[in-house]
């Protein structure tokens, strides 16, 4: 089972998954990039660091 690299949550993939697709993690919102389909491998997609500016 492939889990999120940030928080280890199990990842759910749509049936028509394609290479390079970005999958969000339901638990922590991290964006995972599909690096290869078989074997299924994901990597952390570069996320733009957003600042509240508070």
């Amino acid at each position: 089972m492939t889990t999120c690299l940030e928080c280890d949550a199990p990842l759910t993939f749509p049936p028509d998954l394609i290479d390079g697709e970005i999958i969000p993690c339901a638990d922590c919102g991290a964006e995972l990039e599909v690096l290869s389909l078989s074997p299924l491998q994901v990597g952390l997609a570069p996320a733009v660091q957003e600042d509240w500016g508070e």
Partner: protein
Amino acid sequence: MLRVSIVGASGYVGGELIRLLLGHPQVRLHQITSERLAGQYLHSAHPNLRGATDLRFTSVQVLESCDVLILALPHGQAAQKIETFAQIAPHLIDASADFRLADTAVYERWYGAPHPCPEWLTRFAYGLPEVNRERIREGRYVSGVGCNATAVNLALLPLVQAGLVDTHRDIVAEVKVGSSEGGNEATEASHHPERSGVVRSFAPTGHRHTAEVNAVLGLENIHLSITSVELVRGALATCHAFVREPVTDREIWRAFRATYGNEPFVRIVHEKRGMYRHPEPKILAGSNFADVGWSLDEQTGRIVTLCAIDNLMKGAAGSAVQCLNLMCGFEERTGLGFTGLHPI
């Protein structure tokens, strides 16, 4: 249908209990007592319930037997009449602080007087399902929870259970709270021109909910502080603890999942981006959720854990209905499905 009555239901917690139980498919509200408002319609005290029921307040003198009696009385009154109330129903839920602390000595230290009926203390299960589910399920008497204590307890519980906290170092917990914690009695301090927009150091040290936190977490060196902010409903606990040894974010995820993975009302909110990446109390208003999260300072080993609740719901009436569901064998989420509003 379960016959449920509520004693002392003219206050804010009473109003929430009525709102929740009117929407509970297995419950029929029987009597709602208030000495001050006896004879009045419920919406005279709870305007949101206008048209929802034609029940009226009655006096506690005419209380008839029922299946579950929920007590929403001011501090001290439940303990005084516990024997009478115990005749009325086989199950009692007391939303006040009277039966929360099992240890009479601790009660006396924090409430400044010996407990009026100490023999009853051991019969009451502490009404926080996330730490006491089995005892609540099997018991007949359940106490309410302190709203500030609940926010602090739920924030620190995963780390304590996973043994990640250095228990020799001090833990400071500051709870930011809304004005509804003070109840519906108007005081000088709650007068709008004085209360609006404050960041008021309501109880910088020595809040009586500390006793509950010590009891639930089994930790002594926890220092509570309450600050009132611009909010009506809501509490946010910000707890500053120190990890025993270096730990990673994923290990903290594992600890939070171990404690809350199967909990119906605790949501883990820990994201890298977005306005709501940490728990936010205002969007929980009216819901029974406790949103928990954290932020780890790897340089200093300080871990700030967070818990947001609605003080009137998870901090009082919501947990009480959750306990009723457990005691009476209903699915735990029954009548507690409201998800909260956004924006609000």
